[in-house]
C-alpha cells in the first residue's frame, strides 16, 4: 500500500511540474508577447526591443522557464508589473483570505452534504428523497452570482441580518471575520452541496443492490443501520473522490464569489491581474490554484486507496 501511495504522490508531483510548464508556455508561445501586451498601442520597434531586454525576454524560453521555476521553488515569485511590489508579498494576505473562505465553506458543506445524501438514501423514493432530488437538480445549474445576489437581496438588504460586503482587513478580529464571510461561505456551500449530496446518495444506492446488503436486511437489521454501517463504508471511495472534485471546484468557484462580495482574496487579485496584463501575478496565482487543484485530487486518490482494501491490490 505504501508503494502505491508513493506512486500517487510521485505522479502528483509530475503533474504539478507539467502544469507549471503549461502555465509558463501559456504566456510564452502565444503570439504577442509580454512586452507588446504591456506597451499595447505605444509600441515602436525600439521600445519593444528595449522592453524585451528589460524583462529578459530576449533569451530563449526554456532557459527562462528553468530560471523561473528555480525562483518559484525558492519562494521568489518575481515582481508585479502593475505595482512593482514583490508578487509573494501581494499574494500572501490574499491567499490566507481565500483559504479561510474555502475552508469555512468546506467545513460546513461536507458534513451537511453527507448527512443529506445518506438521509435521501435511507428514505429512497419517499417524499423527502424526491423533493431534495428536484431541488438539487435545480440548484446544480444555477450560477454562483445568482445565488450570491439572491442571498444579498433577501438576507442582507431586506432583513439586514448580515453585511453584503465581505470587506475584511488584515486586522479584522476572527469573530467579525466569521460574520463578514458568512454570506460568501453560504453561497459556496449552496453551490457545491447539491452535487456532493447527489453523488453520496447515488454511491450508497449502488452498493445497496449487492447481495451482502440483502443478507443484512434478512438478518432483520433496521434500514438506517444497513445504510450507515454496511453500505456507507463501502461507498466511501467514490464519495471521497466526489468530495475532492467538488472541493477543487470550490477553488474555482471562489473566484466568482469573491467578485460578488468584493472579498479581498486571491481570485480578485487574479482577475485584476488578468485585465492589467500583469503576467507575473497571473502566473503565480495560476500556479497556486493549479497546485491546490492537483493536491486535492491526489489526496482523494490516496484516501480512496486507504479506505478501500480492494484498491490496494490492483490487478
Amino acid at each position, binding site marked *: 500500500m505504501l508503494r502505491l501511495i508513493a506512486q500517487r504522490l510521485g505522479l502528483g508531483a509530475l503533474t504539478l511540474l507539467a*502544469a507549471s510548464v503549461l502555465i509558463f508556455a501559456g504566456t510564452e508561445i502565444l503570439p504577442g508577447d509580454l512586452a507588446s501586451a504591456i506597451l499595447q498601442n505605444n509600441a515602436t520597434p525600439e521600445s519593444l526591443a528595449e522592453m524585451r531586454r528589460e524583462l529578459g525576454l530576449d533569451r530563449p524560453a526554456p532557459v527562462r522557464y528553468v530560471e523561473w521555476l528555480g525562483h518559484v521553488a525558492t519562494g521568489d515569485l518575481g515582481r508585479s508589473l502593475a505595482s512593482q511590489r514583490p508578487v509573494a508579498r501581494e499574494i500572501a494576505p490574499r491567499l490566507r483570505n481565500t483559504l479561510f473562505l474555502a475552508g469555512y465553506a468546506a467545513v460546513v458543506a461536507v458534513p451537511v452534504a453527507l448527512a443529506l445524501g445518506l438521509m435521501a438514501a435511507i428514505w429512497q423514493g419517499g417524499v423527502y428523497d424526491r423533493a431534495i432530488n428536484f431541488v438539487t*437538480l*435545480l440548484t446544480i445549474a*444555477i450560477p454562483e452570482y445568482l445565488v450570491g445576489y439572491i442571498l444579498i437581496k433577501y438576507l442582507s438588504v431586506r432583513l439586514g441580518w448580515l453585511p*453584503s460586503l465581505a470587506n475584511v482587513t488584515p486586522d479584522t478580529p476572527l469573530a467579525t471575520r466569521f460574520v463578514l464571510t458568512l454570506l460568501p461561505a453560504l453561497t459556496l456551500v449552496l453551490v457545491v452541496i447539491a452535487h456532493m449530496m447527489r453523488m453520496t446518495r447515488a454511491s450508497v444506492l449502488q452498493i445497496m443492490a449487492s447481495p451482502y446488503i440483502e443478507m443484512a436486511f434478512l438478518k432483520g437489521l433496521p434500514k438506517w443501520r444497513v445504510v450507515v454501517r454496511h453500505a456507507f463504508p463501502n461507498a466511501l471511495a467514490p464519495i471521497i473522490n466526489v468530495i475532492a472534485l467538488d472541493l477543487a471546484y470550490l*477553488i474555482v468557484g471562489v473566484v466568482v464569489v469573491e467578485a460578488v462580495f468584493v472579498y479581498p482574496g486571491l481570485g480578485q487579485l487574479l*482577475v485584476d491581474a*488578468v*485585465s492589467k496584463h500583469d503576467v507575473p501575478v497571473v502566473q503565480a496565482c495560476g500556479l497556486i490554484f493549479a497546485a491546490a487543484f492537483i493536491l486535492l*485530487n491526489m489526496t482523494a486518490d490516496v484516501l480512496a486507496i486507504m479506505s478501500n482494501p480492494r484498491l490496494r491490490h490492483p490487478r
Partner: protein
Amino acid sequence: MRMFGHRLSLPALLGLVIIAANLLAAVFAPLIAPFDQASVVGDAWGDASAQFPLGLDNLGRDLFSRLIYGARMSIGLALVITCLSFTLGIVTGFAAAVLRGWVDTVLSRLVDLLLSMPTLILAFIILSVLGTDLPVLVVTIAVLDAPKVFRLSRALAMNIAALEYVEVARVRGEGLWWIIRREILPNAMAPLIAEFGLRFSFAFLFIAALSFLGLGVQPPAADWGSMVRDYRDMINLDAAAPLYPAGAIALLTIGVNFVVDWMLAIHARGHGEGA
C-alpha cells in the same frame, strides 16, 4: 409528445419549451423587443411600468429589451464555442481511436495535462496575454473545452472501431476521413447529442462567468453575464435588476439540463422500452 421515439418526461418537455423560447427570443430579437438595446428611453433606473416591464437600466435603457438582445450574444457565442470545441474534440478523438499508436498516446497525454488544471485558471492565463477580443474568447474556451469531448468521442470510437463493419471498411481500403464520417459518427450520434447539451451549458455558463468578472464580452456589446456586472450595485438598493439576467442564465441552463438528463436516461435504459 415523443422525440427520438421516446415519450418526453415532464421536466424534458419543460426544458424544450425553455430552450425554444430562448432561441425564438435570440433569433427574432428586433421583432420582439419593444425598444432598441442601445437607445435611452428614460431616466436611469426608472421604475417598472406597463411600458417598461422590468424598468430601466443604469443608462436609462429598457431592461426587458436588453435582456432579449442579450440572448443573442449569450446563446450565439455559446453555440459557436460548442460547435468549434465539438468539431475539434470529435475529429481528434475519432482519429486517436482509429489510428492508435503514437497519435493516440500524444493526444491522450496532452488531454490529461489540460484536464489536470482548472479550466478557468487556464483561460485566465491565456486571456492575460491575448486580451479579451471576441475571437480570442471563442477559440480559447473552445480549445480548453475540447479535451472533454475528446475523451468521450475517443471512448465511443474505440468501441465502434472494434466492430466488424469498420474492419470491413478498412479492408475495403476506405480512408480515415470516410471511416470517421460514414461508419463511426452515425453510430456515436446519440450520446454525442446529449454531450452537446452538456458542453453547451458549460460554454454558456463559462462565458457568462468571464463576462461577469469583466474578462468576457466587452462593452458596448453586452451578454447576460456582463449585464449582471453592470447592474450589480443596484442589489444594495433592493432592486432586482441584476437578478433578471442572472435568472435568465440559470433558466436556460436548467432547461438544457432537464433535456440532457432525459436523453441520458433513455440511453441508459437502452432502446425498445418506450417509457
